[in-house]
């Protein structure tokens, strides 16, 4: 599976926000698991969750019938901590599905094409682009480094722990 180059930074920002929210809420949950999350934090967490839902799509949403917290339900610190941890896991699955090893390092599988194209076509187009750029180099023409510059990332969580 592939990801657009510009979406990598969106992903990284989203996961950073998810991780820090989770850290904050977990700390609260350790002190007062049944304590209620205040409305201000809840609204901000909901904003992050909604951006996650849009970005990851239905396939990577942890719970199909959960999109955000209702203020009226007064979720507790432990409720929020649980949901955020689930979103973090699904974000990691999303990432794991879009990275591969290249030259001994893990990189994002970047695509420059529009997201509506089938992923199989994307793969063959990528191969074709690389072949073209090789040909171009051979002819002495300038090759766009953007096409081949890898975006490095950490190994998938399961391997990182080994």
């Amino acid at each position, binding site marked *: 599976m592939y990801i657009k180059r510009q979406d990598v930074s969106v992903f990284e920002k989203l996961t950073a926000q998810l991780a820090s929210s989770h850290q904050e809420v977990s700390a609260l949950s350790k002190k*007062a698991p*049944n*304590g*209620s*999350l*205040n409305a201000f934090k809840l609204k901000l967490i909901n904003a992050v969750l909604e951006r996650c839902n849009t970005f990851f799509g239905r396939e990577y949403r942890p719970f199909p019938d959960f999109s955000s917290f*209702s203020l*009226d*339900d*007064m979720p507790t610190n432990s409720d929020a901590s649980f949901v955020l941890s689930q979103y973090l896991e699904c974000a990691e699955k999303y990432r794991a599905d879009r990275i591969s090893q290249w030259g001994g390092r893990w990189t994002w599988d970047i695509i420059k094409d529009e997201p509506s194209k089938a992923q199989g076509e994307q793969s063959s187009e990528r191969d074709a682009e690389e072949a073209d750029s090789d040909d171009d180099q051979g002819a002495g023409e300038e090759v766009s480094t953007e096409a081949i510059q890898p975006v490095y990332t950490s190994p998938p969580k399961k391997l990182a722990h080994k």
Partner: protein
Amino acid sequence: MIRPRLTDYHNISATQAELDFAIPFLNEDIPLYVDPFLLWRSPSLQDQALHTALINSFNYQNRLTQKGQSSDAERNLIIASECEEVGLGVSATRRGSRLGSGTVQQILDLFRRVPEYSKHGFTHFEEIQLYVDGIAKDRISDFTCNFLKSFLIDYTIDQCNSVGIATQKVRVPALYDYQKQRFEADREFQLPVHPERGTPILLVPKRWLRFGPWINFEDYFAAYCPKDDVINRQGSDERVQVLRYNRDNYGVVSEYIKAKERDAGDCKNDPLFKQIPIVSAKRKMSEIKKLSSGKGDNADKKYEDAVSELLASLLYPHLDFADTQVRSDGGSTIRDLVFYNNRSTDFLKEVLEDYRSRQLVMELKNVHVIERDHINQLNRYLTNEFGSFGVLVTRNPLPRAMFKNTVELWSGQRRAIITLTDADLEQMVEVFESKQRLPIEVLKKKYVEFRRNCPS
């Protein structure tokens, strides 16, 4: 309505906490009194100036006596001894009685008998409680209100304009004219009136009110009165003997006054309603959880007392507590809590608009399981000012069948009966402590959960 207030009558949605004045009841007095010491110690120049005017007016009665106009002084003090317009005290009817001539003469006699008062007058006229029998917090409050009535009229007009309370032209029976230093009769002003009696109502700033004056006989007797000396000189330390002793020993009273002035920083107004502290709320919750359900060992009474105190505090200031009610239904004694619906949150506005509940009723039920009869008892009670919204405060969640019953009541009659259980009370106490959310939001949460289960 249960204990109707002026604001409820005029459909004003502000809570007591939001208003500068004490909201008067229409049919009874507020159990608080104006303490002139609060004006004396106030950092506000306006209040200090009012205190000066008050003292000047009181001391002027001595001047009248010295000028040979003691009958005018007596008349002034008799009129000043009762102020029905403000509705403060313990009367269940907002009506009181004036002092008699004998007591008033004893007050005026103090100017003659105690040289310091004759020469310099009073700084704190509430000292008369320490000399004259029959003078206590209610009279001190009434004297203050009557001598400052002109200010209270202006204040009332200003507050009514600001809050939106309707006024009309009405006669004020006696108004103290500060320039002429006498009471003028039957002056007309634009004031709020009692809806049935048509009598004027005056509003009083909350900051002037206490349960009793800072300078008072009980406090003097408990900690400052030299009882041995009183017994030696008067034969006993009964109240009348102490008053007599004080009249002959101004120095003792003076020392008491100086001590009270030194401690003026501790003199604060008493709120009409005080929330219990968080520690007490947690203790009450803990007591509730330990209680068994049912009536054994008086558990139902203990439950009702604890929940009453807890809920009144938890829901303040969004819901002003009105009263507890005890009623009978089918041979059972039922205890309810009644709150004024001030529409202070969107949820409460919705309760008023959709269910016409000007007062919220919460029926307390210390039972293990709610039965159909319990729901019907509350349902039958939802009339008039209670509209069609009620709360059952009980130990455990409703059984499925009973919950379905409440949903059917909504479907068929648009009546909403929701429950608050021990777990909900615990959550209310938790947010009361953490301040992350509001206890009233727990009530809203239960309502939202209920509505989600109702057919659309």
